[in-house]
């Protein structure tokens, strides 16, 4: 059996023509974060500590949509969200509307461990972060030029789209806006299992480009973007609204359990049932299996198992 770990840096419309200057830093980031996770597992850290550690690294990396490098709201601000879950105890923690906390995933962990609640948001979450002495900074710390540009392009595209006061389709038109074709959907996540079958998952994001202020996506919603139990740990990424409706993370475990199928089959089944181009996920089972399916053009991902296998990928076969 042995340990296993998978990480992602977001699923989306990642063009095959992604230029090296955009591709290489992300691949390097995935590689480094994977190594951090592997080292932690080798040192016998609990998967809950491992996933938090890895997601902190991904949050700190400016090229992924979490922590530094988070996409911007329609007001040009940053509102981050994250969640974490322990498969054995089913304890979980989540935060939303975080704008000054350097590592939202650590705040989510503190909600889980230091409060009687599961989920804190906005002012209440920020106040709690300060009480707990977490590192906080000016919001400008998280904002990158790339994201200012993304927002500008999204807003230019919006002038052509139907405005918010009329009923619109749930599936908003593909954002043709971004000239460099870079992924607009993103999130980071990590799932891990140790050689005793303890599972954990963590997910973190800045959300959707040009989102309405106050918009919450799937990432902090337990059962949607994040879920873990005794069978598997799941972290999803993509179009939040589709992942929420599809209760994606929960369904992988439910389908495994109730239909008695394998992790790989369950994950593929669930991804098949969300609209094309909207989601991807990473998951590990209690027996150390890994699968990382997606129905988008690509998903930044990496994984490794104790027997020495490792992989870093962006496109290629959708059911791995």
């Amino acid at each position, binding site marked *: 059996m042995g340990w296993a770990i998978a990480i992602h840096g977001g699923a989306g419309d990642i063009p095959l023509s992604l230029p090296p200057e955009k591709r290489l830093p992300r691949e390097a980031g995935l590689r480094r974060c994977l190594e951090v996770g592997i080292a932690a597992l080798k040192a016998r850290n609990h998967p809950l500590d491992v996933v938090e550690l890895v997601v902190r690294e991904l949050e700190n990396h400016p090229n992924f949509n979490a922590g530094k490098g988070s996409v911007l709201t329609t007001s040009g601000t940053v509102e981050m969200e994250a969640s974490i879950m322990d498969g054995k105890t089913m304890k979980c923690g989540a935060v939303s509307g975080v704008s000054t906390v350097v590592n939202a995933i650590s705040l989510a962990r503190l909600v889980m461990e230091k*409060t009687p609640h*599961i989920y804190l948001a906005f002012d209440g*979450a920020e*106040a709690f972060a300060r009480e707990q002495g977490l590192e906080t900074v000016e919001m400008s710390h998280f904002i990158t030029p790339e994201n200012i540009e993304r927002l500008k392009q999204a807003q230019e595209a919006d002038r052509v789209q139907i405005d918010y006061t009329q*009923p619109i389709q*749930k599936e908003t038109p593909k954002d043709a806006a971004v000239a460099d074709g870079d992924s607009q959907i993103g999130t980071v996540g990590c799932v891990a299992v140790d050689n005793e079958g303890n599972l954990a998952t963590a997910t973190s994001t800045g959300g959707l480009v040009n989102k*309405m202020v106050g918009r919450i*996506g799937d990432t902090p*919603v337990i059962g949607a973007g994040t879920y873990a139990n005794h069978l598997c740990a799941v972290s999803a990424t993509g179009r939040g609204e589709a992942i929420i409706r599809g209760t994606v993370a929960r369904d992988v475990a439910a*389908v495994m359990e109730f239909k008695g199928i394998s992790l790989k089959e369950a994950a593929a089944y669930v991804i098949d049932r969300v609209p094309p181009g909207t989601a991807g996920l990473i998951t590990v089972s209690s027996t150390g299996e890994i699968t990382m399916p997606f129905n988008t053009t690509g998903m930044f991902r990496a994984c490794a198992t104790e027997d020495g296998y490792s992989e870093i990928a962006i496109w290629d076969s959708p059911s791995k």
Partner: protein
Amino acid sequence: MGGWAIAVHGGAGVDPNLPKERQEEAKRLLTRCLDIGISALRSNLPAIDVVELVVRELETDPLFNSGRGSALTEKGTVEMEASIMDGPKRRCGAVSGLTTVKNPVSLARLVMDKTPHSYLAFAGAEEFARKQGVELVDNQYFITEDNVGMLKLAKEANSILFDYRIPTLSTCGGGAALESPIQMNGLPISVYAPETVGCVVVDKEGRCAAATSTGGLMNKMTGRIGDSPLIGSGTYACELVGVSCTGEGEAIIRSTLAREVAAVMEYKGLNLHEAVDYVIKYRLDEGKAGLIAVSKNGEVACGFNTTGMFRGCATEDGFMEVGVW
């Protein structure tokens, strides 16, 4: 088989010492809400409209813990949340951290119908409400004397109780004012006020819908979000079923309770009653909660592992029942 069905709830977890008049008051309110829903169903309103209508009524009445009459945060303010889901395409809307919106469930509906998103919260949600021109009131409007008193008791209880770990049935420490030994979410049942409200409906066309609304946990930290606005936890509806849950929010989230009912029907082939029983019996660990559900076949069911749940249900063939225990 078939025909419409409706169920409403006003919270799972009732103080066994609740005065008779309060029980009667609750039953009258539940009956009134059922009647409103039944009337709407007879006029062929779709399920999604009926659940919103009924939950609005429950929010407006100060009796239960939603809208006016909401439980108070540790600061003595009100922060409300709600969610609504339409079975046929699983469209959904949710809101949290509302402080001036008179009917949270209607704002959740607007999030579903008028934005590209599913969930808006706090300042952003309030801003959206303003832009949509929904009825806004001062936060004071939602605060009742009853709840101000409850908050005080909750704070006193918390100074005796050490942590909020999932409660076992044990007597709580010294508090002379607190008679009942039952606890939920670390609070004695007499102050817990779990009375989240909800409604599930299946209309004549077999369309299911669900909606849930609440002020949340008495003495909660500001910014705390519970299960009610979380799709899959407090609320869920799909082609097969509509579910609304109430009780210990954290337990409902961990067990993704509402989705669980639908999942066992979908993946294990259980019928509605079997699914509800199974989920309550086996999926709640030590948590205390209850739920109401309707199926596309016109069945209605409720289940709870708490002492009582304020509930009412009715079906097109004339069945109607309102209960507390």
